[in-house]
């Protein structure tokens, strides 16, 4: 990344450079909507497109490599927590499950894509984002509703929100190979070495390979309140060890198109500390994961107005869960699950006239599950998704209409199978620049989408229910964005405010029927809220710049399932009314400093909004400092962080306490 970094520094000093639309290395949040991006001449554009967030007709939030480095975040969940309208359900610690829920719709409505292809888990329906490293990430973005990019896989249309992780492509200027070596270390036994090698193999072929290993014992102290008493302890059985490797091939075949291949392998073993149970700290659950996938991407431009894109993936994931407990006659319970996925997506983008484009994309996937549980039905799911989208986009107006057709059939070896599912899901969005000379836009969007029941929902031993209907989510959003670059001192100022209303129907929940739990379609949630984002950069004396970013979310997410229930119209669990985050980074030639703050108001751990279920509000603060040294081609980066500076005891999930004050350092060299 040194080339990128160098460019970043030099370009920052070009006065009046407003463009972020095509320019990949602009500062974090410097997404100034402009139609004047042709001014870019003279600057090398490396072909990566960074979307303008102010121009989007649905909320889009982006954090790129520069922003990640500037803030000093080292973990994907830490980065995602900087976005508004998002809750990261964090079970604490390095090995703790971390999932992303967009606007209270639940993590199962959020798609996570890794270099364009969605990561799926047909069994649980949600993706643990803690398994991705930030080290090779070039950009992460979060879109709510249907993103404006119509040339995506159909799966990216099939969710209420999407978290996109885009990894770095190497850039070679003078040398044909690069090596990056990095070590992270921190509190609670964290050690994380990382090695990446990039090699140019001729004019049109580039290969990268990387490996990283992480271990931590995660034994952090905590304090929880037990009525009038404080109970303190240490998390136990929270050790983790993971190994990740990735190989990438990028080839530019000129007229033949562009072909990228990726191989990924992940292996981990961890203890599951479970929730803190009063008077009993016994915890002996363990989880082993193995996951590998290969994915390919091919794109070709035909003439000037038609392009084709094909993506495919084979994914294998295996996990073993063991609970050592004297309640089992054998002394333990062991569950093993194997999932496979075969996936292909093909799409075309046709632009018959200027400003108008159409896309048609079809995805087909097969998902299988095997496990050692009794009465495993060995389900196989066949999913066909097709989407037709049309977009009109000029300097002032962007409108997008899409319709997604879903067809799902399932096959089982034993037991009941669900009936085939067919559904049409529309989405509409528009963004309009109100005045030609002012960068003020208003936007509105609508999307109707659903999530299908997961394999666990339908087939899990005893609790699964094959009669489940899909869980539907309807989203409405209306908002405004404004961006300006008032002076050389105030390089930019961006503001966006969105109001939204979501409705979740036929929510899939586990319902007990006196002695046994069963998955049921039982629940309706009405969610209204406001997201506000502000970002600004102030430059002083040519050598110091301040980057300020803040966001705020107000949310009313209430359960309207049953009028006679005690929790009728109560805020749903784990959803704060008020939440926000802010960051300030000071960039200068001596030492870069960042201050990050995130806070959440009171929440409830259970559906009923009573004092006993309340989880107290918290403010978490992190300070990060970093410094880069360059000598010829060699670049050294040193970084240090203090997380949870205030040593605040807080919980995101009740009885899963979060770590107190902790430290992390990073040494990275690149040449």
């Amino acid at each position, binding site marked *: 990344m040194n080339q990128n970094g160098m460019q970043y520094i030099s370009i920052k000093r070009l006065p009046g450079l407003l463009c972020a639309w095509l320019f990949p290395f602009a500062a974090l949040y410097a997404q100034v909507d402009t139609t004047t991006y042709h001014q870019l001449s003279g600057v090398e554009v490396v072909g990566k497109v960074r979307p303008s967030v102010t121009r989007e007709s649905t909320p889009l939030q982006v954090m790129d490599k520069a922003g990640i480095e500037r803030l000093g975040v080292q973990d994907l969940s830490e980065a995602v927590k900087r976005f508004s309208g998002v809750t990261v359900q964090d079970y604490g610690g390095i090995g703790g499950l971390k999932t992303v829920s967009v606007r209270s719709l639940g993590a199962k409505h959020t798609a996570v894509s890794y270099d364009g292809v969605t990561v799926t888990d047909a069994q649980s329906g949600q993706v643990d984002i803690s398994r991705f490293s930030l080290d090779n990430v070039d950009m992460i973005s979060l879109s709510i509703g249907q993103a404006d990019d119509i040339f995506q896989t159909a799966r990216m249309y099939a969710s209420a929100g999407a978290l996109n992780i885009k990894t770095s492509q190497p850039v070679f200027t003078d040398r044909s190979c690069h090596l990056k070596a990095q070590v992270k270390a921190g509190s609670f036994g964290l050690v994380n070495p990382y090695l990446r090698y990039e090699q140019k193999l001729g004019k049109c072929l580039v290969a990268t390979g990387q490996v990283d290993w992480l271990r931590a014992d995660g034994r952090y102290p905590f304090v929880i309140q*037990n009525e009038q008493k404080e109970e303190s302890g240490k998390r136990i059985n929270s050790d983790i060890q993971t190994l990740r490797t990735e190989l990438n091939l990028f080839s530019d075949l000129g007229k033949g198109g562009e072909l990228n291949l990726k191989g990924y392998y992940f292996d981990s073993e961890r203890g599951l500390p479970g929730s803190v149970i*009063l008077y*009993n700290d*016994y915890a002996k659950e363990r989880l082993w994961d193995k996951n590998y996938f290969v994915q390919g991407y091919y794109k070709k431009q035909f003439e000037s107005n038609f392009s084709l894109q094909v993506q495919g993936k084979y994914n294998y994931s295996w996990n073993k869960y063991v609970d050592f407990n*004297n309640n089992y*006659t054998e002394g333990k319970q062991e569950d093993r699950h194997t999932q496979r996925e075969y996936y292909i997506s093909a799409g075309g983008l046709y632009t018959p006239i200027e400003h108008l484009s159409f896309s048609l994309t079809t995805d087909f996937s097969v998902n299988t599950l095997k496990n050692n549980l009794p009465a495993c039905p060995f389900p196989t799911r066949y999913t066909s998704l097709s989407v037709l989208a049309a977009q009109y986009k000029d300097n002032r107006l962007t409108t997008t209409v899409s319709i997604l057709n879903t067809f799902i059939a399932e096959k089982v070896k034993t037991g009941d199978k669900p009936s085939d599912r067919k559904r049409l899901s529309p989405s509409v969005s528009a963004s309009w620049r109100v005045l030609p000379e002012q960068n003020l836009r208003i936007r509105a969007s609508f999307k109707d989408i659903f999530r299908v029941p997961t394999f666990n929902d339908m087939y899990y031993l*005893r609790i699964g229910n094959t009669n489940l209907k899909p869980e539907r989510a309807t989203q409405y959003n209306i908002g405004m964005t404004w961006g300006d670059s008032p002076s050389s001192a105030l390089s930019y100022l961006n503001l966006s405010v969105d109001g939204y209303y979501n409705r979740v129907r036929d929510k899939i929940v586990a*319902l007990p*029927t006196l002695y046994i739990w069963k998955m049921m379609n039982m629940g309706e949630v009405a969610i209204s809220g406001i997201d506000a984002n502000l970002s600004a950069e102030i430059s002083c004396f040519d050598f110091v710049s301040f980057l300020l970013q803040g966001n705020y979310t107000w949310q009313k997410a209430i359960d309207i399932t049953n009028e006679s229930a005690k929790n009728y119209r109560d805020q749903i669990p784990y959803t704060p009314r008020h939440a926000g985050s802010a960051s300030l980074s000071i960039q200068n030639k001596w030492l870069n400093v960042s201050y990050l703050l995130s806070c959440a108001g009171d929440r409830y751990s259970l559906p009923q909004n009573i004092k006993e279920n309340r989880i107290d509000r918290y403010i978490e603060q992190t300070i990060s400092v970093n410094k880069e040294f360059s000598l010829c081609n060699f670049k050294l980066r040193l970084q240090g962080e203090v997380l949870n500076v205030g040593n605040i005891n807080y919980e995101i999930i009740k009885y899963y306490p979060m770590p107190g004050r902790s430290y992390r350092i990073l040494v990275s060299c690149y040449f």
Partner: protein
Amino acid sequence: MEKKYLLFALCSLMTMSFISCDNDDDPKPGIPTESSTTGVYFLNAGKLDSNNSTLDYYNPETKDLTTKVFATENGRGLGDTANDMLIYGSKMYIAVNKSATIEVTDLSGKSLKTINPKDESNVPQQPRMLTAAGGNVYVTLFDGHLACIDTTSMEIVKKVKVGPNPEGVCELNGKLYVANSGGYNLVQDSTLSVVDMNTFEEVEKIVVTINPKTIQKDDKGNLYVLSLGNWGDIGNELQRLNVATGDREVIAANSQIVSTLCNDKIYIYSAKQENWVVTGYDFKVYDIEKGKIEEKSFITDGTKVENTYCMSSDPVTGNVYIGTSDYTSTGDMFIFSAEGKLVNQVALSGLNPMGAYFLTTQK
């Protein structure tokens, strides 16, 4: 609260008068007839992994409910998933399943001792259900044991291995009957372990309907065993087991059954489910003398009780306590007279009420 202390003093006094017995906590050497109910405790399990078990106290005379008594008395919570409770002599015993503790308290809920059962490898054993007999308290431990607690030292003095995941335990004619649920097994257990009280050894196993949960007895030598079935084709069954003859008869069967035995009657909640949704339910009375279920409904005043979760009965007044839960919100306790008329309905402090437990005094 003052009233409770009074009660405690009274009970202590009562205990003192029975000092002749070898275990000074044995409450019934002379068998005087019980004649008044002075207080009722409601135990709420809370939600699993939520550390929100609570104990509420109800005064049947003033109809006042005092919530979260254990926390008030002790400055700390009961823990996670209190499963059963027993009032015996001057003490109360609360089995807190997930916390793996047995809280021994005085009659006002003040903890006298916390028992932490552990196996040979020092792994906590989770207590499930309690009974008292012959001056001792017995508790089932979910790892497949029955433990005997000395009521004076408040310690586990002996353990015996029974079947897997034992639930209810009941004493009859010098023997302890333990319901082996085998709930953690792929195929549940279908036996009762019979433990001789003197030798404290398992002497035999009796086969019942799969997944036995609770056991109650009448005074004619019968046990009433509620089995929960296999969560599939076999539903809940309430069986009458004549221990002497070995005869076993199913007296009620349905998708869900909750029952409580009160002197010569058994109150039965029986619900039908289709696709796991309750489509109909009733409350009936089984007459032990006649050996059959009465035609008419128990509730006679038209009160609707949804989401029945537990049932208990006051042996003195004959009142029936029905606890309800929707698993998401705090429960309610409906109190009916023996004639089936609603006496009171109180809002409990916790989710999932496990039952009502009675403080009774002799006149």
